[in-house]
């Protein structure tokens, strides 16, 4: 199935309220597209993109989820195996920022505890409509040990950087863990394991590169 070579495969989910621009962040990152009149996502959409970190190829498998999914049975399926999460809010809509707390709680409940979370304030191009200040969000992020960035899928600012940052961060964590874990092999039997460094063996959680 794998059509290209990679060293690590990370599953990253995009979460946040409906309409904050998750799908456009994804399309900007993976296809460099922006769709002005995109409809709200139904179910889930996937996209992949590989980036280079420390001469390693990291393949990101990004799940763009529907913000309005009500069933935990389904949302938990989104989080299963995810090693990173971009928690997106809309800087021009304060309510979406307020809901960040709820999303965080959901992540803590359903996702792996080691999941790397990045708070993303999207739509930074709407300066005149800004409802959430950068400092406020930054403070909140620091408080909850999240990394933080403001992006605009529309003018593409920081989108690349956001994904780059989270993937690098994941990579740092994983690469520091993989080696010791590799020693006793298959130490993480759970199929929801967040990491996979080889296409042939993602369940096993790691193998020599």
């Amino acid at each position, binding site marked *: 199935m794998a059509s290209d070579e990679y060293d690590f495969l990370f599953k990253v989910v995009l979460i946040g309220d409906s309409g904050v621009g998750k799908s456009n962040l994804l399309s900007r990152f993976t296809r460099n597209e922006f769709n002005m009149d995109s409809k709200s996502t*139904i179910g889930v959409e*996937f996209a992949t993109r590989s980036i280079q970190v420390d001469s390693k190829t990291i393949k990101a*498998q990004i799940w763009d989820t529907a913000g309005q999914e009500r*069933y*935990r049975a*389904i949302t938990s*399926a989104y989080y299963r*195996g995810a090693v990173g999460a971009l928690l997106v809010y809309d800087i021009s809509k304060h309510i979406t920022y307020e809901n960040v707390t709820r999303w965080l709680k959901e992540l803590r409940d359903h996702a792996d505890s080691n999941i790397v979370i990045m708070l993303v304030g999207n739509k930074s191009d709407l300066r005149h409509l800004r409802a959430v200040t950068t400092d406020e969000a930054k403070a909140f992020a620091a408080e909850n040990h999240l990394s933080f960035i403001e992006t605009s899928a529309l003018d593409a600012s920081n989108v690349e950087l956001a994904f780059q940052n989270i993937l690098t961060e994941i990579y740092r964590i994983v690469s520091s863990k993989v080696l010791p874990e590799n020693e006793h092999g298959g130490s993480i039997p759970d199929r929801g394991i967040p990491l*996979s460094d080889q296409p042939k063996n993602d*369940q096993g959680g790691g193998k020599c590169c």
Partner: protein
Amino acid sequence: MENNQRFSDRPTSLPPPFPGQNRMSVPVSLHSTKLVVRPLPSLPVEIIATILDYVPVSTLMRCARASKKLREMAYDDSRWVNKLVAMGVWNEGEARRRFEDALKKKRIAQAKFADEERRRRAASIGASVEPRKSIGMGDTLFDVNEHEAKANGSAAAVSKLAQDVELMGLSTQSDIQAPVKEKPKLVGVDTSDPTLTVLSDVRSARGFARQEYGRVYAALWPYYIDLVSARNHADPVVFRRYRNPEDQAVMLRQLGVFSESDSSLGWAERSSRLNSMSSIFENAVLREFEGGYEESDYDGRMKRYANVLILLNGGQGAIDLFVAKHYLMFERERLGNPMDCFTNLHSADLSMEPARRFFTLLSEAVNEQSSIIDRIFPPDVDVMIPFLERIGEDVIGEYISPLLEETHDRDIESYLKCITDIYFSVVQFSKSIHPAKGSERNFTDDITKIVVRIFEPHYDTYLQEELDHFRRLCEEEVETWEKKITDEYTATESFYLSNINRQADKIDFLASFKKVILMPVNAIPLPPMKQINLAFPLPLPMNPFMRPKPAVTVAPPSISDAPTDNPYEVTPDVTDSQAVENAAPPTPISDGRVTPQPQTAPTTELAAKAAILNTRMEGIRTLFSIELALDLVHKAKTALERAGCFVRFQGRIGEEAKEQCEQIFICLINILGQRHVKSGFDKAVTHLSQYNPRELSTAEEDEQVIVKPLVQFMELVNVGDLIQQMLDVFYEQELVAHKLTDKNDFLNPAIKEKKRFEQMLDERVAAGLNTGIDVLIKEVDYVFAKTQKPTDYNPGIVGDLGFPTDLGPSEAARKVVSLVASHTKLLVGSTDKNVLDVFNQEVGMRLWSSICKHLKIQRISIDGAIVLISDINHYTQFIVKLRNSGLTQYYNALRELVQIYLIDPQHAKQMAAVIADGTRFKGIFTVEEVYEFVTRRSDWYQIKKDVEKAMYGFGCSVM
């Protein structure tokens, strides 16, 4: 008062009304009559009045003296008006105007009368009396004023009346007479003799009819009575008194007119005597005229005697003689023999050159005659039209009839060409004729009428033949083609597909088609009589006619400087205005072909485009051909152009020609539609329905999956659409633009037929699409069956392939989408948007059911769900592009649905809630259906219990 005085000053004794009548005996005889009559009961007034109508004027006057009552009746103005009317010299309009003017003036005068009495008197008398006197001979014959004044016996009344009279009859004379009465010009007549102009000098004034008539009577009666009683033509005073033939003619005419008012006993005899005298005179003059004709003494004798005849009776005799004796009528053979046009004795080879030469010669001769006519006849007599009528009938008619009959017998095609050719020649001829000075303003209309008359005997046959010929031609064409393809059909069944930018090709093709259609083909002459300024004598009018326009670069020199209105014609680059291309009708080429030279460029261009298109659409060549359609359209165009010539005729011919044009169009549609396109579509549909994907060779395993018969069919739709558009353009440009049909008349057969064709096309397309969808979906199912691996959605099944790493649709999904997309794309631009929408909707729905059906036989694991979701997203993406919101809903429901495969087994209970959530799927899936889908989970048997428990409660487990 002066007025009174004036009238009382008038002689009370009238001059003797008629010479030789004894006035003195009148009272005596009347008296005795009265005595005799008195005991008798008097007759009713009406009868007396009627009797008086038949009494000779002299007797009438005598009666008037009998009694006041009789006088009143005899003097009654209407009696005299009637006489004037009988002579045709009474102008009611003038009389009324005079009367109204008089009333107006009277009112003004009355206002002024009191204070400006003196001044007014002096002015009016001075101005009014004089002219009256200068004219007046016999105006005192009856003096109504005096009579009425006496009758009323009132001085005031007399003065008032006198005033009226003065206003009505006299003072307004000078300013009314001029505009109202148009005196015939009397050339060569001594107008100083008042007798010769007595009739034209009659004024129409109410209350004065008797005086006017009296004047005429006094002048003409003696001559009249003398003439009718003369024994031979040399005898009458008229001829002795007037020596000049012009004067004699005028007198004779006046007498003729005067005789109309003669209603007394013996008038018929007198009138016939007069007529026979007149004809003797006329004959004598005609002889002179003819003598002049024979000697070609145009300016001398002919001119003079033509004038005499015109003075006598309008000159009809002279015109008749001139036309009848004209040498052109007898020397037709000299201008050309119709049989010269046949180059070969028996075959139908025609050369129109001799005919053209014939018309040139004729035109030259006629124009020569036109100037002769101008020399002979005065400009107020129209000789040209009767002359041309005869020419049309005797010369042209005689020439073309045998020619047309002969061609008709030999070959229809050349007959059709011949008749239009001749038509152009005649039109050209008619345009080349200069109007003579005497021609009226509607000269061109009259000429057109003559042209119509020339063609009247032929056009019926022609129109019928044109239609028959066209139909026959088309049928032959289609038949040959059909035969050809049945021969080929078995041999070659390879279809060639090129999917490149079909729409652009079509637009391109249509553009050049339109260009060709718009090209004024030379068979259509520009509307006659318009461009050529007839008042401007063209020295070389026959030039463009004589010489066929040889090529686009050489312009026949012509004088007309009308700009060419043909945008496609290459205007030669000449600066000399003398050489600007004539806008006059283009010329048929010498070989009789109607398609003209300048058309060549776009035609070949179109042909090239057609060829390109044809290679691109090679696949459908075997079913129907655009080339053939083009060919037929061209034939129709030629036919229409020929028949179209006759449409310009007014009245019946024009109408029938129009109808025939519509018939040709209908015929075209019928043959093209029913015979050609329909059978093609039927074949394609049959072919399509027989298609079975499994029979196809396994060789083509590549990405480009196509259902060939469907592609073929879609191409057919494209071509059908193209043909339809072609017909549409043709209809607009040829029929509507040339006003051959009324676009807004929905009952018009042409429109109905066109609609029917379009409907037929739509039906065929719909039928084909229906079958096509079946085939397409069959193919989709086949692709599913062939390419969808069981591991796609259930990777765990074979070893530990495990977590799908490369997200994206499975091969099967990609193939299906590309298959469907490539086919839906084919239709874009080729058919109606509604049809397309319906087609897409149907395809989308059928694809959706196919996917659902397909899903229900798959096994799906949680990992495989990702692939499945990718697939479904891929389908949806394709569907969204079709922009059909209804369809999108179905696919969205499917997207919601497939998420249940993501759910972890541990959430089995909640899965039940998802299954039961009807709103989630917007009613598209029922709970049972969703449940059915859930059973396709690879772990179904492990979670079944939990799910069912959650769904149906615990009751089940009790069982």
